[in-house]
């Protein structure tokens, strides 16, 4: 687990805004097995009401299982999953949860009907739905209502599925890779709509594998890997953590005090002639090391404290900043 999880996150901020309410979503030590395969291995997660959380993780990390559990499609092998103070199934049955699932090649909509008919049906399945026109406006699908569902482009179908997810005026909305089939402009518009919806005090959880998207649109990011939350915090904190590097070298006359004041350094360990430092800016640290004429050899700069898979996942989004081993 990354250190960022111990820092006050947006969760606490949201809790401060709604102090006397139970969290919108709570996973406590959740284990899920498919036969002998361990999909979730003690997952813990809490989302406050009104918060927007991004679930970030590579394929096979346990995201799909987490989603299935929070929507009541699966039951955990052990541990507790609580949604809006009750069981996921009940929260869904009471119409307090809306979801936009991934559909692969499919549209996620019933074939052979017009968009309006499908959306009106979904609206009628809820006890206290949002007014039809409001849902249409929120999802920006006014121009699509008379279209047959099989004649929508990928991006259009996604907007209609968003409308389906919010038609019941849910307190918690779950979106699984909501902008997967959209172009840049489409994404921008879509996120503005989601954001507006979230500003009305609703809890939004979305899954993604782009750190950019997670950082830009979520109050908080939870990184899932191998069935556990490996990092949890505001996007900015996560990004800083990603930049963190461990700088190691050998120094024959190591004096701890020399290293503490180096630029970017947050932690120093000295074992005999071996020095190991954690730095938020390895470039600056090494430059400072040279400038102060501290003699060093066998210099190494490596990612600090994060699980490899997490680093690999993030690396897709962030260009590498450090050449390993450069003096």
């Amino acid at each position, binding site marked *: 687990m990354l250190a960022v999880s111990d820092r006050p996150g947006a969760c606490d901020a949201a809790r401060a805004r709604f102090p006397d309410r139970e969290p919108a979503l709570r996973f406590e030590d959740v284990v899920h097995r498919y036969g002998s395969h361990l999909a979730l291995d003690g997952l813990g997660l809490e989302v406050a009401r009104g918060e927007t959380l991004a679930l970030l993780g590579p394929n096979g990390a346990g995201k*799909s*299982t987490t*989603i*299935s*559990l929070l*929507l009541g*499609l*699966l039951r955990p092998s052990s541990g507790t999953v609580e949604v809006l103070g009750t069981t996921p199934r009940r929260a*869904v*049955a*009471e*119409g307090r*949860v*809306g*979801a936009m*699932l*991934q*559909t*692969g*090649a*499919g*549209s*996620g*909509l*019933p*074939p*052979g*009907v017009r968009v309006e*008919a499908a959306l009106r*049906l*979904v609206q*009628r*399945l*809820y*006890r206290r739905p949002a007014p039809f026109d409001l849902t249409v406006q929120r999802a920006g699908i006014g121009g699509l209502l008379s279209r047959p569902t099989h004649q929508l482009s990928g991006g259009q179908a996604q907007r209609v*599925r968003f409308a*389906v997810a919010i038609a*019941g005026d849910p307190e918690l909305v779950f979106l*699984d890779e909501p902008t997967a089939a959209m172009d840049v402009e489409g994404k921008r518009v879509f996120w503005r709509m989601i954001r507006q919806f979230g500003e009305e005090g609703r809890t939004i959880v979305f899954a993604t594998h782009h750190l950019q998207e997670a950082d830009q649109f979520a109050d908080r990011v939870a990184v899932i890997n191998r069935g556990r939350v490996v990092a949890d915090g505001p996007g900015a904190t996560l990004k800083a953590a990603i930049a963190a590097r461990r700088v190691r070298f050998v120094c024959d006359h190591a004096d701890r005090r020399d290293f503490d004041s180096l630029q970017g350094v947050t932690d120093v360990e000295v074992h005999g002639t071996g020095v190991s430092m954690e730095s938020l800016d390895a470039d600056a640290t090494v430059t400072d090391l040279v400038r102060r004429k501290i003699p060093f050899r066998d210099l190494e700069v490596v990612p600090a404290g994060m699980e490899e898979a997490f680093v690999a996942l993030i690396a897709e989004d962030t260009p590498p900043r450090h050449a390993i081993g450069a003096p």
Partner: protein
Amino acid sequence: MSGLLAFTRFEVGRLVRSWKFLVITIGFPVVFYMLFVGNHRPGKIVDGAVAWRSYLLVTMCSFGSLVAALSAGGARLSSERAAGWSRQLRVTPLPGWSYLVTKVVATMLVVLPELLLVEVVGVAFGGVHLSVADWFGLTALLWVAALPFAVLGIFIGWTVHAETAFPVVVGLMFVLGYFGGLFSPVESMPKALQVVAHLLPSFHGAALGISLLDGRGFGFSHWLVLGAYGIALSLVLLIRHRIEETRGIS
């Protein structure tokens, strides 16, 4: 409750608005009645005590309900699953059991007008004459007898891949229709095929109607076979559905 009603209405609406569904379900039994009725003298007594025109009316009603029931589920359901719609419904307040139940109910609701349509054709083109009580009784019997086919159609749609579901359904229609004796009297079939016919639910569905018309009575053995098919298919469908439900979203 209003959600269930809305869903049922939506399902029936989708069926009757699909030209593909209408062409197949109206076309086949109506055209077949007109084609086959001339195969024998319409007044010829077949299968013991019933005139050919009435016999064919019963078997074409059975065939019509078979065609309607299988196509209502079948490829339509299969492609809707492929689109991800059935899974989307699972995350709405619609109760889990109601999806399949509504499908069966919607199927049965389109089978009924199908039966009435074939009866009208029988009267218009075959000159069939029945008492009011017989019309009611016949329609009710054949309607109930369509239940196993409704379940079968949904099972196919729930199990078979979208692209193969259509040929499977059409194949089953003709296998159950031909070997079930719906196109020509069973007594005129070779002995071996007669044995096959007695194993098929399509034969027993039509036989219920024919027993009513020739006054042979209740047809206990036919009910037994149809009931067994209905229960067995429902169980298989439920098991299939349970497996699907334990798979989550992926």
